């Protein structure tokens, strides 16, 4: 008879806190940061086009596309452009964040999914290259054809340009503005033949040019993402907060070291969970009052704004009090 050994604890029980594994200069104004856990645990799965939320000191949240290798389950890579009008996010990453530091992370979430196609036209402006990198990796495996048009102010400002050219040759068109002017979007995109899908990520004027050129294309055959400069959400809270369980008439405190799920369980209220990474939806709970700080991968922007439900395994509170339908 073997005696039961101690029970392994369920997945991560605290917030997703990642360590900066390394930080590299990629081009003028761009650094890349690799994040992971010290014991190289698997991080929540993601798909090309996904971003994570980086929760910076002071509770500011910034979104960065994942641009690493999805076949490396223990590492996320992001690349960050120093923005002149930065309210602190990119400056912090450039000037302060160092290997060994810990950062809180939400997500990953994907508002920019890769859809199946026979032929892909990728257009990237500046740091808009980041979501395109894992898309190219995926499309290579899918065996579809693709080309990339990649522009920016100067050649020296274009992150990953050399590695893309070295690897993929003439499928990559590098187009610095100071040498060649604006991106030749119309020529590059062509007429939108059936089976072709265009992906564009970059600054607003580039997206506008792509939208104008592709106005008559089939529904869904043009997909764009504006890289997000500033988050509009209220700053998230790093201190403890109170969670009131309306149906069971109890109230619990959630400290930074524990999740809402833990706190609810400790109060003896039965709740189901499964992944405990915000991926599966098992722990979804109705929110009656308060503003959730969403860190799951599932709810889209509309659902987040509605604020009437949350994944309590990872999501937290923006204010000092939440009332849950439990």
């Amino acid at each position, binding site marked *: 008879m073997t005696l039961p050994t101690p*029970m*392994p604890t369920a997945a991560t029980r605290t917030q997703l806190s990642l360590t900066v594994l390394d930080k590299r200069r990629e081009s003028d104004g761009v650094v890349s940061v690799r994040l992971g856990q010290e014991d190289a645990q698997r991080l929540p799965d993601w798909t090309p086009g996904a971003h994570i939320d980086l929760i910076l000191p002071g509770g500011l949240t910034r979104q960065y596309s994942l641009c690493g290798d999805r076949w490396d389950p223990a590492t996320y890579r992001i690349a960050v452009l120093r923005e002149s009008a930065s309210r602190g996010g990119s400056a912090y990453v450039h000037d302060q964040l160092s290997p060994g530091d810990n950062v809180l992370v939400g997500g990953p979430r994907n508002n920019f*999914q890769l859809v199946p196609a026979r032929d892909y036209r990728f257009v990237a402006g500046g740091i808009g290259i980041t979501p395109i990198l894992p898309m190219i990796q995926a499309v290579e495996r899918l065996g579809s054809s693709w080309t990339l048009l990649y522009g920016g102010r100067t050649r020296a400002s274009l992150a990953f340009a050399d590695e893309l050219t070295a690897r993929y040759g003439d499928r990559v068109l590098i187009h610095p503005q100071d040498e060649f002017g604006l991106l030749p979007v119309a020529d590059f995109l062509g007429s939108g033949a059936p089976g072709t899908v265009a992906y564009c990520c970059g600054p607003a004027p580039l997206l506008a040019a792509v939208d104008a050129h592709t106005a008559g294309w089939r529904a869904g*055959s043009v997909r764009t993402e504006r890289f997000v400069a500033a988050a509009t959400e209220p700053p998230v809270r790093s201190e403890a907060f109170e969670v009131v369980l309306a*149906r*069971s008439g109890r109230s619990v405190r959630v400290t930074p070291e524990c999740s809402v799920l833990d706190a609810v369980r400790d109060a003896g209220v039965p709740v189901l969970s*499964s992944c405990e990474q915000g991926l599966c939806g098992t722990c979804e709970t109705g929110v009656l009052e308060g503003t959730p700080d969403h860190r799951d991968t599932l709810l889209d922007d509309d659902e987040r704004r509605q604020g009437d439900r949350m994944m309590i395994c990872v999501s937290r509170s923006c204010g000092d009090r939440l009332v849950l339908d439990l």
Partner: protein
Amino acid sequence: MTDTTYHAASTELPHFDDDPFGPELLEDPHPFHARLRDSGPVAYLERYGVFALGRYEQVRAALSDWQSFISGAGVGLANFRTETPWRPPSLLLEADPPHHDAPRAVLTSVLSSRALRGLRDQWFADPESLVDDLVKRGGELDAVSELAEVFPLRVFPDAVGLAKDGRENLLPYGSHAFNAFGPRNALVQDGEATIGAVAEWIGEQCARDRLAPGGFGEQIWRAADRGDITAEQAPLIVRSLLTAGVDTTVNGISAVLSALARNPEQYELMRRRPELIRVAFDEAVRFESPVQTFFRVAEQDVSLGGTVIPAGSKVLMFLGSANRDPRRWVQPDRFDLQRDPSGHVGFGMGIHQCAGQHIARLEAEALLTALVRRVRRIELTGTPRRKHNNTLRSWGYLPLRLTEA
């Protein structure tokens, strides 16, 4: 290189010549599961030339690690690299990233909890009359054919948007598909005789013009209109619902009814504390594991539990054994609503985790809610019978008495 790794591993690996798909172990797999778990983290099944995982830790690790343990070469015994699948492979279950990504994103959104909110009222209303009728009739019933099969078939095909005619094909189709993940034994051969016409009917129902507006099926087609998936993918994604959506919940519901009948104090507790209804279903999914097994193929040499599994090997994950591993669960052989069944692998784990789990939970919650309102006690009135299936822990007969509250 591969050979030496294999031979080095195989001398130390516990070997078994048991047949997990044979009648004896399908009738009662638990003693074998215990031997498998106690033999070590990884074992080898001689009869099929596959590696076997019986412990929670390794099963969960293999389920999560899609980079090393792939599904695209089949999640049954057949290796699609060398054998022809019996039907075009699933775009979800039998696909790896990046092919898996778009179909999965679409199905996740079609079956999301937001989508289910619209069904909730209707699904909760439906079993009231069903349970009422059974109780009024005296409460004696075969819970398999008169409740567990009836209720999902009343709500799920409508939610998909299927036509009324021909729905009797759904159970045989699912049953054969789940048998076909195992070896081509008598269970599969029996199914092969009749599956042609059944599969043809299933195929026809996946076409756009067969699917009622607003249902899951039509929503999958609308995703094709938006370009999120292709028009060639849409029918196969609908097929996934028809394959995986019925037999699984039938056996899940049978599992919870049987467990409640055998543990009257647990039923009593659930009646007093209806917030335990959802726990009861997940505890039954842990306890019985309606889906017992799935396979993977090692994409490269993978080190797991101190063994190197060579690239290309088939690996059999015993979900049912992991869900009763005493290394993870206290008194795993007890059906206990006061435990937290969270983290069981009855719905899998990771990127292939059951896309229909919220549907399954909602169906069960609706039915159990109707039961606790109307039924004071559930008892076994005879000896239940299993129905053998290569993958499902299935029931043939479950005689119960429902006593009116």
